[in-house]
């Protein structure tokens, strides 16, 4: 049988990899993909806690469904912003878009 900590350590690994991607990648689409990895790690944590603590109550699964909705909204708006940005300035590198920076 698999103890709870193994799932949590697995989710922590996914989250850390996603965090590295968010902090280090230049391309905005790559950053969005890393955010998807982090949200998936969060969902694994929710489902693992649901299964190992109170499987009779569905709170963990309800939270996972809400996280799905939020991540779908986030990626839809984010990719629309990327497309709009690309139309205007023809580049999608996060460190070269500094019009609002001072």
């Amino acid at each position: 049988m698999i103890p709870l900590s193994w799932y949590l350590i697995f989710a922590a690994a996914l989250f850390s990899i996603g965090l590295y991607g968010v902090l280090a990648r230049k391309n905005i689409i790559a950053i969005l993909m890393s955010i998807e990895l982090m949200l998936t790690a969060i969902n694994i944590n929710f489902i693992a806690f649901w299964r190992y603590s109170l499987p009779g109550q569905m709170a963990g699964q309800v939270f996972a469904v809400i996280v799905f909705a939020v991540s779908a909204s986030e990626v839809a708006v984010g990719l629309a912003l990327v497309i709009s940005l690309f139309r205007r300035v023809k580049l999608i590198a996060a460190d070269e878009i500094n019009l609002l920076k001072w």
Partner: protein
Amino acid sequence: MSLGLFIFFLMVVVTVVAAVAVVTSQNLVNAAMWLMVALFGAAIAFVLLQATYIAVIQVLVYIGAIAVLIVYTIMLTRNPDEKYGPGVNKQWPIAAALSLVLFLGLAYFYYTLPQTDVLAPALSGDLNAISQLGALLVSPNAYVLPFELASILLLAALIGSIVVAWRK
């Protein structure tokens, strides 16, 4: 070694390797394909945790919709004269160190904490998880408010992304 344990370790190795490939691939299309592999590995984790509905939603929403949307956006925003330079910025060693410290700290925490060293309780035989989840999501005594808020958020995201991406 039991079959469940073998599948767990296989899933962990495949998912972590795919996730590392997502954040290190120079070619964004390759990164998106690796993202699909990583998300599928997470779906296998949900199956191992006996959350079958969440696993199906993971495949449908993440792989079927979000990953395909990401691939479309990569194709739409490809610059013809773009060269695959270094895909990371100047701070990448700090980012790598921070991520490693976070992972090691969390792993040590989870490994030593006695509350996380538990095995899964047996599911009761009459637990119908999917119908219970559906009833709770629309029940006024449970989670109808977060559910409705999520639908408003999805509607706002739908309208907002059309407005933002509209060709002026």
